[in-house]
């Protein structure tokens, strides 16, 4: 029996690893001015966000979370619980690291929304745009997150800047998808009505389609934030500062306590942000 029936023939194999490596190497060498600008810009942006976040003293944040929870959910026990959870993060000595994580999350979410929201609107309009963007989104979501850490490091080095890029790539699909979905789902007659009364395309979009799609868009924002938090932790592998780096240190030194403490802080941060954003969006949904 010939060999090619039972085993995949060597003659059919192609090499894609080397060309990709070469392309990345080529970019590292030749596109460095572009990446330098990107790096500088992002670093400045991160510093700005970090500066703003650090303007908030620890007690103000706790009071703010308490007041916000009380206003949004109208449940005192939740407000007390969330404040105590935040206090716990400070008590176990992770407050500053949490602020660093928060800085990267806020920066990444901001960029994600800045790019993702218009993209979502664009692909809700055209079938062709949708056909192009959808597979890209699928790839971004299914590709193991470590994979694009490698080129990010090669192009932008270690640290917070490549972390923001990697986190943005990871967190952008939900906002794109949900924006496009929300706009498509607006009642056909409502859009027809907007057109029939002489709206321009832009008027129909801003005055009718986006407001009608808002609840769906907001759940996309919520998902984007959650994914950003998850990715920021992974990005500690490439030197992102914050709670994730504590986990990495814990692994390296086999210190379970350090890892678990940082993990708990991440969980608390995620829960509080998730519940708060959700309650804001629900309120929006009721009002509309």
């Amino acid at each position, binding site marked *: 029996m010939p060999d090619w029936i039972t085993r995949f023939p060597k003659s059919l194999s192609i090499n894609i690893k080397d060309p990709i490596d070469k392309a990345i190497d080529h970019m590292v060498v030749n596109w460095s001015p572009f990446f330098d600008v990107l790096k500088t810009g992002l670093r400045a942006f991160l510093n700005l966000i970090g500066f703003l976040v650090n303007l908030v003293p620890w007690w103000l944040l706790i009071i703010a979370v308490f007041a916000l929870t009380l206003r949004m959910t109208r449940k005192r026990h939740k407000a007390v619980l969330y404040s105590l959870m935040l206090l716990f993060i400070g008590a176990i000595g992770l407050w500053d690291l949490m602020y660093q994580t928060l800085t990267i999350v806020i920066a990444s979410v901001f960029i994600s929304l800045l790019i993702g929201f218009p993209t979502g609107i664009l692909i809700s309009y055209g079938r062709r745009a949708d056909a192009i963007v959808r597979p890209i989104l699928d790839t971004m979501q299914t590709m193991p997150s470590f994979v694009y850490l490698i080129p990010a490091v090669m192009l932008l080095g270690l640290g917070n800047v490549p972390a923001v890029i990697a986190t943005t790539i990871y967190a952008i699909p939900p906002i794109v998808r949900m924006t496009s979905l929300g706009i498509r789902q607006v*009642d056909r*007659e*409502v859009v*027809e*009505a*907007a*057109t*029939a*009364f*002489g*709206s*321009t395309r832009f*008027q129909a979009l801003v*005055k*009718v389609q986006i*407001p*009608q799609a*808002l609840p769906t868009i907001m759940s996309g924002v919520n998902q984007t934030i959650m994914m950003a938090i998850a990715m920021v932790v992974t990005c500690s592998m490439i030197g992102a500062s914050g709670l994730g780096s504590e986990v990495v240190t814990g692994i390296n030194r086999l210190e379970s306590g350090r890892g678990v403490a940082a993990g708990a802080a991440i969980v608390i941060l995620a829960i509080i942000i998730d519940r708060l954003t959700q309650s804001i969006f629900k309120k929006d949904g009721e009002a*509309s």
Partner: protein
Amino acid sequence: MTTENNSIIRVEHLYKLYGMNKEAAREMLNRGAGKDEILKKTGVTVAINDVSFEVERGKIFVLIGLSGSGKSTVVRCLNRLCRPSSGDIFFEGINIRELKKKELLEFRRSKISMVFQSFGIMSHRDVLGNVAYGLEVRGLKKAEREERSMEMIKMVGLEGWERKSIDNLSGGMKQRVGIARALANDPDVLLMDEPFSALDPLVRRDMQFELLTIQEQLNKTVVFITHDINEAFKLGNTVAIMHDGGIIQIDTPEGMASNPANDYVENFINGADKTQVYTVKHIMQRPGCLIRSKDGVINALKQMREQGISSAYVVGEKMEFRGVLTLDKALRVKAGEIVFLDAIENDVPTTTAETQISELLPFAAEARVPIAVVDDKFRLCGIVSKAAIIASMV
């Protein structure tokens, strides 16, 4: 010519085809092929097939047809929500197929507006915000557009609701918002795409009445779509009946009813008067008071007293209908003035379950007691009261 001056919309040889292979479809249409055949051979859907009509200023023009007959598409061509494949639409002499983008916006903002079947209300705005929408996109100042909108809100009877959220409104009220919004632009023509179909019958009747009142007051031209022939005849000055994308007949309601163009139209019109469709079995009831001829007068009186009815239906052993015993005759039997069997009136009108209600109308007017329904062996099956007959007609 006077008719020329009076017409506000003139549609000439309008076609709308959906699909890729329009050329082939057009050719088949010219050869007189049917809609189904064209769809099968070319994959092209013929939504509108050579439609021409004129709408007179200040009148209500009704397009009627079953779903899929193309009536909604025709109306959407009138404000260019839908682009005609060929044919012309003249609005006050201007061909709206040739309007430029800006002209089209202007046309939609000031000349023509629309009311939708499922209202097309924007749930993120309150009542006032919805009514003012057309004026807002036109660029009117807030104070001015709200003042005008309030007038319209008053006109449709929603005063006091202007700041309410849409979710608080019933279906009828939502459509009032839709109508107020359409009127706020002060358009010449109001397009109404089955505006009352989603409403329950009582509300629908109110809204029809109100539409007529408003139309009389403001003297707007209305193009009204419906699948309900009663509604069409009630509202329309002119009615056009559509089938498979084409118009079969255009006439006044009276003209169409007395002189239908073909069987399709006739069937449609027959649906208009329900008494010609419904038969007795749809509306008959069980007799409230039923006695057997051997039961005797005491029993009959007892039953009548219990039910609060002044007449009893008398049947034999096998339910065969004997007649009606009225209260005063029964009392006379009890007093010994006449005998029981003589007291039973047997000249009561009878009918069968399969009779059309329209045939009952002459009897019903005369009858003192509900008409008895009997089968072929003269057994009593039920009774038909005047109230039930009247209820079936509305």
